[in-house]
């Protein structure tokens, strides 16, 4: 069936099977591969994207459920040509908030949603806000530090 989805500001129409998951739509139909499939069971958060501005796990959303919605992926944070890092991405780089990098797209998307709803979180609020995102390198310390640094820098968190 046809879905109309605005992905990173670009309106699209695509013909999809109802069973197509949003994460597979983004990776394979749209061709945006920052969003990772990790556990595939809505546990690990590697597939986190924004659906109408809210963080969701795209392995547990059907593409047809996103019909008429706006989706933002990691690629949508960094500006049109990707040359300008989003403040949260810049903080992850400055604070060494990634090791292998597999969880990073989901972490950044969860963190940007967190900062939009709570621009000045405590460390505990950051840890709880990111509880749906696993880092199997166990690099949580610097991830939390990066989110706090982005908040302290007064990171404007535009969509």
């Amino acid at each position, binding site marked *: 069936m046809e879905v109309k989805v605005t992905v990173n500001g670009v309106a699209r129409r695509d013909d999809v099977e109802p069973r197509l998951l949003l994460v597979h739509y983004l990776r394979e139909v749209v061709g945006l591969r920052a969003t990772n499939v990790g556990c*595939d069971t809505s546990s690990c958060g590697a597939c986190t994207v924004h659906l109408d501005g809210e*963080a969701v796990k795209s392995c547990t959303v*059907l593409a047809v*459920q996103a019909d008429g919605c706006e989706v933002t992926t990691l690629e949508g944070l960094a500006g049109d040509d990707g040359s300008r890092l989003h403040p949260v991405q810049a903080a992850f780089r400055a604070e060494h908030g990634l090791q292998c990098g597999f969880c990073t797209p989901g972490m950044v998307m969860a963190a940007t*949603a967190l900062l939009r709803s709570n621009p000045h979180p405590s460390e505990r609020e950051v840890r709880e806000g990111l509880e749906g995102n696993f880092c199997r390198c166990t690099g949580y310390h610097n991830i939390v530090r990066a989110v706090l640094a982005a908040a302290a820098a007064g990171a404007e968190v535009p969509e």
Partner: protein
Amino acid sequence: MIPAPFDYVRPARVEDALRLLAEHGEDAKVLAGGHSLLPIMKLRLAAPALLVDVGRLDALRHIRIEGEDVAIGALTRHADLVSSPVLRAEVPLLPDVAALVGDQQIRNRGTIGGSLVHGDPAADLPAAVLALGATLVLQGPGGERRVAATEFFTGFLQTSTAPDELLVEIRVPRCPDAPWGYQKFVRRANDWAVVAAAAVDGRVALAGMAQTPVRAAATEEALTAGASPAEAAALADRDTSPTADLQASEAYRRHLARLLTRRALGGARGRA
């Protein structure tokens, strides 16, 4: 993991959804937030021929005071329960419990109606509505019927919802001043409870202690008869039938039920 193929419809009105459910019977499944149904479809434990997506039926998304109850639309998301000032004032247990469901991303999608109809005995909201003495409003081809939460959960992942019925509303008695507590024991951050205990005004419900969420009848009777919370909590696992699994033995679950009930009766909140 890819679900088996299915047809998909997104009705615009509740009546259209009911008509589709009546036409397709057992072949159809209701899709709301999808956070219980889609995982089991991806595991191919369920393979409905038709998904009826009620996710855009905004008539089922509300939290409002109606007389002695707070009426909660079945499509209200966990995140909406958490942030509701009405619930915070009138039924403070419910936003507190909803904040313990899954994680933020899951709470942005999952709905109270979906969680209740899924009927997982280890889930938070089924135990919460049992302890709150809630009533569930079902709509079907013959009209509306109301089912007490104590009658709603009939077996493992089974409820009294017929294939042609839709859970439309949860009615929770207002209890702004009633003492309450909720204790959830988990081994991992965003996991289901191994055991959880909800206590509201002398009613106690347990998750993880049987094939359905259950009321701790012996504890409630003891409280009514004047027993102390500690004495009553010592009876919490009576007439339950917990199973052993990788997370806990039967004896350990019984221990947790007694311990968490004592803490919940004392007003403790959150993860144990």
